[in-house]
């Protein structure tokens, strides 16, 4: 932890949920992507006076670490997908059902981000997939350093698929590049058709929008074409897939889309 800026994310917890005797060797942190250096910010000592140019992007540190993650994932042919949405859109339900449909044809593992509890990780574990829970404490989003730590714990096999369920929040996660292959925004029909316009930042970074809970369309005042149009108003041409985790409608198209994903962002 750096004494100057207090960085070090002391209250973030990263935990691999135990799931088999064959992985009892304990985590080998050296196998993960480079993480945040614990100390050693370059402090300069020559006298500085007047105006000093800085010209640094504010997310430079995160973007740098995201670059490490991206390279680490690409070297191993691992596809990491970042799922973002407001709380309760159905991310964990979607993952549980997706894992059931994909296994055993493809190794899948999950990194769960929540402020507190292991509830979502336990739900994933019951599907049999390896899972790491990251609790961000006060943090409202995952960042690239947290993903690096999660990957070091998870140790996903080469060529596998890693789903990252971000903290349920339609604002903050949008700004933090994790080094993922693609960003998937999930929106459920019960949230209303104006969500993309109210939270444009999130939808503007989406590589794919999943519209979940279409089984509930008869009960809500939402026109699917309008919701799709709103997505494309802030992210022109974005791919949109309507689905229902409950009935399974649209799951096949989603699984087909997963097959087309490359480890490196297009």
């Amino acid at each position: 932890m750096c004494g100057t800026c207090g960085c070090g994310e002391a209250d973030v917890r990263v935990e691999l949920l135990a799931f088999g005797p064959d992985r009892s060797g304990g985590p080998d942190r050296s196998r993960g992507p480079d993480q945040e250096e614990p100390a050693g910010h370059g402090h300069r000592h020559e006298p500085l006076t007047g105006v000093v140019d800085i010209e640094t992007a504010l997310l430079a540190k995160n973007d740098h670490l995201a670059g490490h993650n991206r390279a680490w994932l690409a070297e191993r042919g691992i596809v990491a997908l970042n799922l973002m949405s407001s709380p309760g859109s159905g991310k964990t339900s979607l993952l549980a059902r997706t894992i059931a449909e994909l296994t055993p044809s493809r190794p899948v593992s999950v990194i769960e981000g929540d402020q507190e509890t292991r509830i979502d990780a336990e739900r994933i574990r019951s599907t049999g997939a390896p899972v790491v829970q990251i609790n961000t404490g006060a943090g409202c989003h995952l960042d690239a350093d947290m993903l690096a730590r999660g990957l070091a714990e998870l140790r996903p096999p080469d060529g596998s698929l890693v789903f990252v369920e971000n903290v349920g929040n339609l604002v903050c996660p949008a700004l933090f590049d994790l080094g993922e292959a693609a960003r998937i925004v999930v929106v459920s029909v019960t949230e209303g058709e104006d969500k993309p316009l109210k939270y444009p930042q999130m939808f503007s970074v989406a590589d794919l929008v999943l519209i979940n809970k279409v089984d509930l369309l008869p009960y809500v005042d939402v026109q699917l074409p309008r919701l799709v149009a709103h997505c494309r108003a802030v992210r022109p041409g974005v791919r949109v897939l309507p689905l229902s985790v409950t009935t399974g409608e649209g799951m096949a198209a989603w699984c087909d889309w997963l097959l087309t994903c490359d480890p490196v962002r297009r």
Partner: protein
Amino acid sequence: MHELAITQGVVDAVTERTGSAPVAVVRVRVGRLAGVVPDAMRFCFELVTAGTPLEGAELEIEQPEGRARCRSCGRNFALPDPVLLCRCGSADVEVLAGRELGVASVVMAEPAG
């Protein structure tokens, strides 16, 4: 409150360059389309600078307006919100400005005595 993490980034970016020398003014650029709320940033700034060389520094936030260029008709226009649509009906629009998010410069504090 991602503004907390963002504002922490301000302190990191500055101290990386200026070390432990006290800073009087911090000038940041937060575009209108950057997804960061300046007031929230001001609030966080006091919190995260406490006990750092930036403590008590003034935070100046420049907010560049959004601007875009239409790739279909070539029109250059103001973009008040992130809805990417040109008057000609095209959504093939390139954002030229408004997404800035960075530290521009600082003014060092006068050495005491």
